[in-house]
């Protein structure tokens, strides 16, 4: 065990820092700072991801043979830490870290060749069609069906909460291909072109009230949508296995680098926030103790993450322990958002309809305060999506503790 960086690591860190300095432009920073739900315009995401792609760093967790950079555990740690510290846009996960690992493991050679390069280069935008109005936590009860019509499937039904579907070129869907006693065994994993006839995407506005086209989620309707047979991944009716495989990638990433960034931001807010009597919030020991308690919990999570990830090589999944990361990561993120709202006091109150549209208007309170309340409201999603935290605890209790 050793926590120190060697010279090569330090050189690598400088390289990452230089890259960020040149690629994460001030326009990007300005736009992202105004986001109420963590995402920005499609252009921004694509531009950023393409610059990472050109550097060879877009997919740190992919195996080298598919275009991963082959980072060591230490390099990956440095990479994530530096990126989070700089507050760069998150990499949209649906292609890179959800459907791609499934294709690598279960796809045909043809599918790998067709889809993986475009995912890597962000030429094609993906979204995730798992949840339905009647099938959330109980995903296996999904009803959206695909009927075998010889050379194609005919898809009818709906998917809901589909993040950024308005930007997507492709959707990976769980569909019902057979009605069996055990709902899990009649599900298939299907790739659908969003431009197919019969697909309708309707926005759903969330608590942060980001307006169209900045909405986070949508409902997607399928009416007699024809999908070529070759778009089936793996075997028909075996989709549940692939779906679960994907979920461990969805949940099993590291949260602590971004959380540390949250702590830094909060400390700088506390330094700037006057609380009367000539004092600033940073002088308030009640608040600072809460902040430090949070930081200690983040460190505890960080070392759990490091222990887990250092035992894996690229492309390997975490296993049910990913639920620990998801549960603690999201709860700490929410705690930080809660403390941020507390920190800014009355400045939580002003509402900005469209933060991007108002880019030239001075904000009502301090600039940093503008998105804090909507981010807190929006952040409640993190303990609901990707399998709610209640479900994560069920998984740990069953799959890890054997209860």
């Amino acid at each position, binding site marked *: 065990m050793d926590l120190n960086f060697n010279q090569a690591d330090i050189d690598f860190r400088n390289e990452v820092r230089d890259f960020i300095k040149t690629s994460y432009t001030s326009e990007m920073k300005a736009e992202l700072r105004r986001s109420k739900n963590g995402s920005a315009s499609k252009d921004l995401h694509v531009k950023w991801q393409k610059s990472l792609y050109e550097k060879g760093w877009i997919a740190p967790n992919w195996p080298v043979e598919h275009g991963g950079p082959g980072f060591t555990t230490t390099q990956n740690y440095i990479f994530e830490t530096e990126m989070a510290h700089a507050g760069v846009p998150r990499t949209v996960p649906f292609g890179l870290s959800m459907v791609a690992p499934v294709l690598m493991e279960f796809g045909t050679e043809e599918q790998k060749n067709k889809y993986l390069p475009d995912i890597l280069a962000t030429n094609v935008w993906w979204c995730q069609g798992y949840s339905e109005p009647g099938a*959330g936590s109980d995903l296996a009860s999904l009803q959206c069906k695909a009927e075998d019509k010889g050379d194609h499937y005919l898809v009818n039904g709906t998917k809901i909460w589909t993040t950024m579907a308005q930007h997507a070129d492709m959707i990976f869907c769980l569909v019902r291909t057979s009605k069996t006693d055990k709902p899990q065994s009649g599900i298939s994993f299907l790739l659908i072109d969003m431009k197919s006839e019969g697909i309708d995407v309707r926005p759903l506005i969330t608590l942060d009230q980001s307006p169209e086209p900045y909405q986070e*989620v949508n409902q997607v309707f399928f009416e007699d949508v024809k999908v070529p047979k070759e778009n089936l991944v793996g075997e028909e009716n075996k989709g549940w296995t692939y779906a679960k495989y994907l979920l461990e990638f969805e949940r099993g990433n590291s949260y602590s680098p971004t959380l540390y960034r949250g702590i830094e931001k909060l400390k700088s807010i506390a330094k700037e926030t006057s609380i009367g009597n000539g004092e600033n919030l940073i002088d308030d020991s009640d608040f600072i103790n809460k902040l430090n308690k949070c930081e200690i919990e983040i460190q505890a999570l960080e070392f759990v993450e490091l222990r887990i990830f250092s035992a894996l090589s690229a492309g390997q999944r975490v296993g049910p322990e990913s639920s620990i990361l998801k549960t603690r990561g999201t709860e700490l993120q929410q705690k930080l958002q809660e403390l941020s*709202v507390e920190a800014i006091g009355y400045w939580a109150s002003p509402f900005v309809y469209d933060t991007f549209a108002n880019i030239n208007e001075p904000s*009502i*309170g301090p600039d940093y305060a503008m998105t804090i309340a*909507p981010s807190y*409201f929006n952040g409640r999603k993190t303990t*609901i999506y990707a399998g709610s935290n209640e479900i994560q605890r069920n998984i740990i209790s069953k799959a890890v503790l054997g209860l």
Partner: protein
Amino acid sequence: MDFSFSEEQTLLRNTIQSFLQDNYDFDSRKAIIQSEDGMSKENWQQLAELGLLGVPFSEADGGLDFGPVETMIVAEEFGKGLVIEPYIQTVVTCGGFLRRASESQRQEHLSKIISGEEIWAFAHAEPQGRFNLSDIKVNASKNNDEYSLNGHKCVVSGAPWAQKLIVSARTSGDQSDKDGISLFIVDKSAEGVSLRDYKTVDGSMASEVTFENVKIDSSSIIGEEGKAYDLIELVVDETIAALCAEAIGAMSVLNDATVEYCKTRKQFGQPIGKFQVLQHRMVDMFMQYEQSVSMTYMVNLKLSEDELERRKAASGAKVQICNASKFIGQSAVQLHGGMGMTDELNVGHYFKRLAMIETQFGNADHHLKKYSSAS
């Protein structure tokens, strides 16, 4: 001791409930928020006709001569309806100051509040002062019989709709001295008053208010020059008591909605309310609510006690309400799953209102400190 409501009080509650039933379903409220005014003048007029705008004022002043318990009933019911119209700002806070104002000021102003002609807002908080009631930089300097007012008040709730403002200003002393603060009645249309109006995250409205050499006649001062601090603290405690009542109204809706949803929403072949972990969460929400109701009664019954007792009661109640608001608001969203995240469902709107009540006139940390210093 008696915790039952009188017939008259029950009647009052019923009146408000039927008003809200007729005028304030979720869609009507949404339409009000999206309207140009951002509130409903018709509703305000109806509140006047029902006598509700006169609840705390004496009969001599044209009011109903009711006490804190009746104000609590109104605020609680308004909390259930998520009422946008600035009742607490106008009637409880500004009304609270005016009730203690001079005979001639009461005569001049109260009838206009009671009749619904005027809306008032309390301009007190300043960017540097946060929740500290005595940290006042807005300055009023006296010249013969006139004051000249200068400075900036932030997030003045209800100001976009108001005709009149009650403004706290420093007439002497250092920035955070309790001594030397005075209260002024200021016409919003007076020269030198400028506002930047905006919507707030809970559907209401507020303003940044700037004063630039605003001339105020010395007859517009409430109480004695430089001696307003105690009165501000008293009226803020009364406002906190009403906000607590509004909060328990909102909590009760969230708890009912959550229990109902968990009985009907099915996953894994059964209502999600059958999962024990959710049952326990709802039980905790219920217990938090019951304790909040109790603390709200407590503070409203103790508003007339001596200063120290009253301050302790207000801060204690606010701490309970802040913690319960957070827990109940967050849990309600969580238990509704994705639906809880939508703007379409009422749950999120109650959650956001409760989050703002947490901040208004001091959050849990602030009031815990106040409580400790009063103990």
